[in-house]
């Protein structure tokens, strides 16, 4: 893979069976059976299909993913994207028309709020949250 700052591109004719690792940015419109790993940005085109996990800095999904997505920064699911798996990221953007089935773990402000909220839910009242505020 090229180490230049420009986005790399694999068109819809590409079929990969195996793991894919790259740096910077990659736009993928083909089919891959394997895991995708990067510290950069991964864009799955509308015709793209991924069967495996995606672990990147920033993921933009327009196609179909059967696997989990783990992004350090942001995951964007564009219209007509399909995700059958879990999402874990600091920020999540979902457009109208997306099909998802899985768990989401998105907490841009850190886990403090989510933990406190969970505790309040278990205890059965909001008194803890209100008093702490």
């Amino acid at each position: 893979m090229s180490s230049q700052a420009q986005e790399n591109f694999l068109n819809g004719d590409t079929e990969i069976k195996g793991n894919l690792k790259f740096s910077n940015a990659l736009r993928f419109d083909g089919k891959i059976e394997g895991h995708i790993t990067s510290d950069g940005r991964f864009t799955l085109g509308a015709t793209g299909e991924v069967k495996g996990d995606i672990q990147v800095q920033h993921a933009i999904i327009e196609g179909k993913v059967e696997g989990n997505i783990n992004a350090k920064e942001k995951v964007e699911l564009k219209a007509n994207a399909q995700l059958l798996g879990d999402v874990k990221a600091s920020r999540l953007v979902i457009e109208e028309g997306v099909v998802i089935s899985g768990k989401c773990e998105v907490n841009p402000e850190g886990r403090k709020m989510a933990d406190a909220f969970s505790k309040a839910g278990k205890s059965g009242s909001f008194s803890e949250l209100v008093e702490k505020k």
Partner: protein
Amino acid sequence: MTVMPDSKPKPQKFVGRTVSLFCPHCKTEQQVRPDGVSMFCQQCHQLIDIQEVLHPKTKSMKTTVKTVPLICPSCQHEEQVRPDGISVFCKKCHNAIDIQQTLHPTKQTEQKTTEVKAVLCFRCKAELTPSINAQAVLCKKCGYRNDLQDYHVKGVLSHDIETYGILDVPSNATVLNATARVRDAMIHGKYIGKLTAENEIVLKSGALFEGGLKAYSLVLESNAQCNIKKEFSVKRIVIAGHYYGNIIAGQFVELKKTANFVGSIVTQNLIVEAGASLMGEVKVGPHLRENAEQV
């Protein structure tokens, strides 16, 4: 033989002012009291209205009445009618004519239209059409009294409410262990119980909701908290505050950038803005329409 005097009292002579009056029939002069009402002419024996003869101006004033032309709507015959009259019979076709409606048709039709709204009886679901300003309506089918007025809670409310109006819970008010069934609800304060709205529920900033919820639309503003423990059924949801519970929405769920969501989501459409916090299971897609609408 002694003759007894006549026992009948002698007529007294009128001692007072009299005026001359000419009989309107035979023109003979009569002497009458000026405050008299009527008398018979001594010549022709006709009844004379003293006041009318003495003060003819009053009589002529009485007979002078302003009339306006009115066209009969049936036969187009012109009638002269008093402008303040109610009704009259046409002299040609003998149909009754509503004078006010014929003279002022626009005003009459405007007054007759009353705006109504359609509601269903809470008990038997019969269609009712009360006036928009009505406070309540009795069902013609089952006789149940359906409340239509708005409720503004002051202090603490602990009894059930059932109305087609709006429920407003201010920031210093609380609804505690109550079941409310309303058209729209605006919650600024605390609500613990079950809430059903025909249209929309809005949880304003600072609001606290705990219990069951059923509505067409739910809006959770920033800093509002919602803890769903019982049933939940909403078709369209917009969350900008804190939400704990499961969502089964028929159509649409939107998480704004200030949203904090903990729970599961099952819906046809999901929109998540950058910045929203989401922890839980998510199932989104048009294929979920049947499952979602069954709720």
